[in-house]
């Protein structure tokens, strides 16, 4: 079966006085059928960088991103145009996503024009109104307004309207609900679920807020300092996290309620700038210094992401020596 | 928070310290102040240090001079071309050779006379005896011989009065004569070092200059022969104070002022008020301001004299159509000289020659018939049109074309020294030229650019002053010699119009060594004048009057009509006439 999106050994190093490993060897795939994949991690874990790479806004230092089997950084313009039409984004800040000099519906008009979504002005208008209604916005309340005249929730839903209009195959939603009111969140997330079920749109949902991921379900990937710590069914991972880091994360989430906000940095230990800055220093478990169960081996080699030993959790992967019997014994 | 606060304090303190440091380092600069300390043996008792403010006004003569940019206030070295000594008084208050002025009269000074032998190969110079330096030491023939040798030794160092000694031998005869032996007959040898309008060759004191580098020695005490000695020089205020020395060797010509103060006043506007208060006794100031000063202070009167250097235009004959004498004459006819002369600060006059004269043209060198025939001073646009038409410069659609069919366009360069006549000529010419279909672009250049582009021939028309020796217009023709017609872009040391004329070359070669007093040489001059008038490689425009202001409140004695120009080195001669007002 062909995968929709394949991310292979992605690496992104920002060069500087001190190199920053934003993304360090991340691989995952999204299947052909509509799914939701949650990307969770604290700030600095590289999740936004992954989003930008997948959207072809940023070229990775190493690794590949294949969309329907084709490298997204191809030179084929026609293909790229098609890719733009099929992979879309919803960004975190619903204000800065609008150019302040234009009226808000420009974001809709632009894609209609660029991707030829309507053959006449009337059709364009009709499609715009339709998409607005699809995300519970009343066209007359939104059209002709400037961004600062709308509420945060309205602006973010307008983004969804844009996505609706385009009917992409894939949405990369980068912290889409972190800056809108708690009350609006659930309805926003519902729209995403609805997109999946009704239109077959897959979502790569990026958040630092586990409660959102729990609400959405699907699969989850836990990132730490640019590396995947644990991966599996959201249900299973959140209920019984294996990796000490995942456990730390889960312990700080009281109840899976999207209307409550997960306090940021409960761990109080978020590390910025991707931790150690040379590749030799990074040949170990990066969580080791914070890990209550760390062993000598954690400091010596990098644990690989694999199915935990002695567990019958087939879909679960974890990068931790605790679940690698031979290491534990040795 | 505490840490940040202390850092902030540290920063503020550091900035404050920095500024304080800079402020402390800079209250007053250390100006170049020369206090003459070496007291020579036979001098008067040690003086109290004098400053300008303590000088009795009625015993002090104050000169407000103007100086070019290289005004040097701590170096009194007249060898150095780069050192301009006119503003400090050094050139005026120390002395030179016998003096031959434009009226032909010889004024003996440090030397008495010169004499050529019959064939012009030997010159005997008689020097004045009993002269002393302004530090009291005697000036003897030893100093003269030292000076000659010193000049010759430094000939390659670009010092003044050096190159004329090439291939020349000299010896002393007794205690007051020097005999020069010349390699070939030359009746003009003396003019190289005696006959300048200003800046003639002068001796230097052996006891001061011996062993000194002629290019860098500053002669800090301003030792020379003259009736004054240096008291102080201040580079900040550009003020030099001199004191009269009563043991001067020529008591008959001892000037009256006990002190002289020379200072530079760059901005005329500022000076006006000081003039009105009687701060200065003599100085150059624009005539328009002088009028105002005179109405405010009745003691101030203008001394007007002719500037010895008439003004004229040079045509670059390398550029078409300026290579055509007819075209050049047509331009001359378009030039309203009288209008320009009228605009000058002090009413000036139109002159048909380009050498110094005393108002009356020196007929010995001048061909009146040629001037008449070729209309060298006439303003006649109609005649100009006629000449242009005849010469084949067609007028098409109001534009006159040169012989290759291109519209004629000429750049006319000038500099602005604050005298309207120097700038307005080009505009008046442009106006007239436009009427006959020729484009003339007046272009104001700054002085350095002017001096660079002129000699390099990068111009069409150039405004310039013309200076030559008194009673001898050789230089006016010499500069037209073909040997100075360098390609454009190379510096020409003659008149930079690139003029070539074998006929004139032959005449010039004869004039150069001939005695200007002889009838044969004068005939050659008249021939040269005729060629010039017909060809007009340069145009004579006007001779200018110059005004200096003289404050008669404390000193009088200077009059209009005295033979000297009232500024620069001529002041040396005028000084003796100055008498106290009461």
């Amino acid at each position: 079966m062909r995968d929709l999106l394949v991310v292979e050994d992605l690496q992104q190093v920002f060069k500087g006085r001190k190199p920053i490993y934003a993304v360090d060897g991340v691989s995952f795939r999204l299947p052909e059928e509509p799914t939701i994949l949650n990307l969770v991690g604290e700030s600095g874990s590289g999740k936004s960088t992954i989003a930008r790479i997948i959207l072809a806004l940023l070229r990775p230092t190493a690794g590949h991103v294949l969309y329907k089997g084709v490298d997204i950084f191809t030179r084929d313009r026609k293909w790229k145009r098609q890719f733009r039409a099929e992979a879309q984004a919803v960004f975190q800040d619903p204000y800065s996503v609008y150019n302040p000099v234009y009226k808000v519906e420009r974001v809709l008009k632009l894609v209609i024009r660029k991707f030829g979504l309507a053959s006449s002005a009337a059709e364009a208008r009709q499609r715009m109104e339709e998409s607005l209604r699809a995300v519970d916005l009343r066209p007359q309340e939104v059209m002709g307004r400037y961004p600062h005249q709308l509420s945060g929730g309205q602006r973010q839903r307008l983004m969804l309207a844009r996505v609706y209009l385009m009917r992409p195959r894939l949405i990369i939603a980068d912290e889409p609900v972190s800056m809108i009111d708690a009350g609006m969140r659930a309805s926003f997330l519902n729209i995403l679920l609805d997109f999946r079920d009704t239109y077959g749109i897959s979502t790569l949902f990026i958040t630092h807020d586990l409660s959102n991921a729990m609400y959405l379900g699907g699969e989850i990937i836990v990132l730490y300092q640019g590396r995947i710590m644990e991966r599996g069914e959201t249900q299973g991972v959140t209920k019984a996290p294996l990796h000490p880091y995942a456990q730390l994360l889960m312990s700080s989430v009281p109840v899976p309620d999207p209307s409550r906000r997960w306090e940021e940095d409960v761990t109080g230990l978020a590390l910025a700038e991707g931790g150690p800055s040379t590749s030799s220093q990074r040949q170990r478990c990066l969580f080791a210094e914070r890990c209550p169960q760390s062993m000598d081996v954690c400091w010596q080699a990098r644990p690989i992401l694999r199915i935990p030993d002695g567990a019958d959790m087939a879909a679960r992967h974890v990068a931790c020596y605790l679940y690698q019997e031979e290491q534990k014994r040795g | 928070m505490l840490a940040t606060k202390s850092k902030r304090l540290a920063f503020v303190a550091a900035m404050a310290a920095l500024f304080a440091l800079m402020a402390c380092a800079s209250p007053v600069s250390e100006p170049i102040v020369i206090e003459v300390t070496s007291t020579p043996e036979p001098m008067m008792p040690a003086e109290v240090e004098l400053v300008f403010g303590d000088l009795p006004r009625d015993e002090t003569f104050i000169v407000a001079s103007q100086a070019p940019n290289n005004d040097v206030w701590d170096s009194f070295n007249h060898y150095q071309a780069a050192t301009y000594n006119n503003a400090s008084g050094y050139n005026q208050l120390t002395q030179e050779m016998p003096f031959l002025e434009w009226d032909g009269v010889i004024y003996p000074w440090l030397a008495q006379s010169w004499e050529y032998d019959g064939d012009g190969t030997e010159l005997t110079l008689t020097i004045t005896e009993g002269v002393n330096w302004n530090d009291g030491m005697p000036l003897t023939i030893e100093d003269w011989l030292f000076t000659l040798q010193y000049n010759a030794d430094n000939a390659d160092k670009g010092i003044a009065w050096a190159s004329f000694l090439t291939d020349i031998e000299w010896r002393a005869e007794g205690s007051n004569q020097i005999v020069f032996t010349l390699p070939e007959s030359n009746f003009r040898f003396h003019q190289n070092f005696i006959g300048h309008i200003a800046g003639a060759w002068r001796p230097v004191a052996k006891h001061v200059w011996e062993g000194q580098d002629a290019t860098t020695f500053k002669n800090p005490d301003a030792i020379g022969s003259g009736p004054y000695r240096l008291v102080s020089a201040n580079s900040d205020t550009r003020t030099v104070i001199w004191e009269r020395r009563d043991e001067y060797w020529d008591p008959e010509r001892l000037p009256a002022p006990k002190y002289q103060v020379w200072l530079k006043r760059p901005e005329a506007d500022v000076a006006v008020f000081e003039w009105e208060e009687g701060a200065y006794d003599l100085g150059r100031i624009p005539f328009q301001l002088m009028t105002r000063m005179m109405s405010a202070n009745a003691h101030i009167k203008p001394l007007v004299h002719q500037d010895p250097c008439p003004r004229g235009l040079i045509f670059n004959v390398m550029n078409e159509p300026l290579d055509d004498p007819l075209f050049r004459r047509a331009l001359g006819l378009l030039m309203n000289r009288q209008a320009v002369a009228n605009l000058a600060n002090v009413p000036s006059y139109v002159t048909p020659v380009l050498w110094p004269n005393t108002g009356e043209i020196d007929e010995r060198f001048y061909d009146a018939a040629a001037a008449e025939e070729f209309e060298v001073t006439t303003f006649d646009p109609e005649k100009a049109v006629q000449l242009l038409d005849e010469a084949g410069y067609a007028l098409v659609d109001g534009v006159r074309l040169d012989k290759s069919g291109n519209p004629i366009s000429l750049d006319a360069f000038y500099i602005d020294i604050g005298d309207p006549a120097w700038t307005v000529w080009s505009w008046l010419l442009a106006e007239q030229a436009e009427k006959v279909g020729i484009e003339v672009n007046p272009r104001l250049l700054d002085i350095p650019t002017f001096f660079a582009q002129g000699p390099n021939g990068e111009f069409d028309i150039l405004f310039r002053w013309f200076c030559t020796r008194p009673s001898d217009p050789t230089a006016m023709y010499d500069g037209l010699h073909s040997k100075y017609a360098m390609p454009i872009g190379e510096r020409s040391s003659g008149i930079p119009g690139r003029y070539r004329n074998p006929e004139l070359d032959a005449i010039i070669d004869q004039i150069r060594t001939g005695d200007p007093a002889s009838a044969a040489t004068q005939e050659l001059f008249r021939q040269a004048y005729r060629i010039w008038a017909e060809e007009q490689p340069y145009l004579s425009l006007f001779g200018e009057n110059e005004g200096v202001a003289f404050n008669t409140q404390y000193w009088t004695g200077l009059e209009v009509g005295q033979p000297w120009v009232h500024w620069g080195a001529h002041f040396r001669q005028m000084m003796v006439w100055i008498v106290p007002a009461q």
Partner: protein
Amino acid sequence: MVAQETETMEAAEVSGRREAVHYIVRRFGIYLFTLWAAFTVAFFVFRMVPGDPMTILLGQLSRAEGQLDPEEAEVIIAHYREVFGLDEPLYKQYVFYLGNSIFRGLDFGPSFVAYPTPTRDLIVQRLPWTVGIFTTSVLLAWIAGTGLGAVMGWLHQRRLTGLAVAVSTLLQITPVYLVALGLIIYVGFALRWLPPGGPYAAHLQPTWNWEFISSLLRHAILPMLSVMLTLGAGFTLGMRALMISVLGEDYLTFAKAKGVLPLTILKDYALRNALIPQVTGLAIVLGATLNGIFIVEVLFQLPGLGTLFVQAMGLRDFNTMQGIVLFSIFAVLTLTLIVDLALPLLDPRIRKTV
């Protein structure tokens, strides 16, 4: 947005000292590079000007001395071309000049405006005048402007403040040379309260007595006033605007609501936050101020670098011109460097952004 800021703060915390060293080294490297580049640009640019000192010299000689013998003229020119190194190819002149400047204690060669005084001596002699006026007037203007601006910002609703703002605006937009001309004409000529030009009375010698000092001060008032008026007006308006914007910030409203005394607010909150941009502003105006001071020097006939530069320009005295340009670049660059390095001390937030 929130996340980003947290990142930044954390980063600054972690990499602290090493970052600072890196920053200083890097900033110093840029400083040296800029200095060199400016030096090179200045060198070649000045050599491209038409006219060279020698022809000017000849022009002067032929005016002052009447006709100059052409052969003698050639010798004179050849000599000075050698003295000033003008007969060498340009690149050799450059290498020589660069070498001399660095390794022989800023030996810029002989000057032509005051031959044979070396350019370095000449600059050193003129420097105190420029530096004196520059530092004093900039500093006074900055202090007065900042203070006045703070008060005007604090009391920005008063009617009198409106008038003061109008006057400051007028002064700020008036070019320094017009202010200088106005002062020369009105105070110097019409009222005759103060001398309209010159460093001190011409009859004085620099000695530390009262007569000299008072004369010096009297002569310094107008030039410094013209710089201070324009510059100070700029600082005043800048500080006022900063104050108003700082006063509008939420935390100040909060502080007021908490009942903190107005003066404490002024001192502890508003002033402190407005001062940093004001210091940056100081760094930015340095270069422009130097230009202004050069003009003021010329107008007031002060024997500083500006006057010297105009003199040197009039003679195409390359050595002196370059020396002055280099010095002023050096001064402005160094002051900017100092301000840049010092700013992070004032405000750690800047450390990351610079």
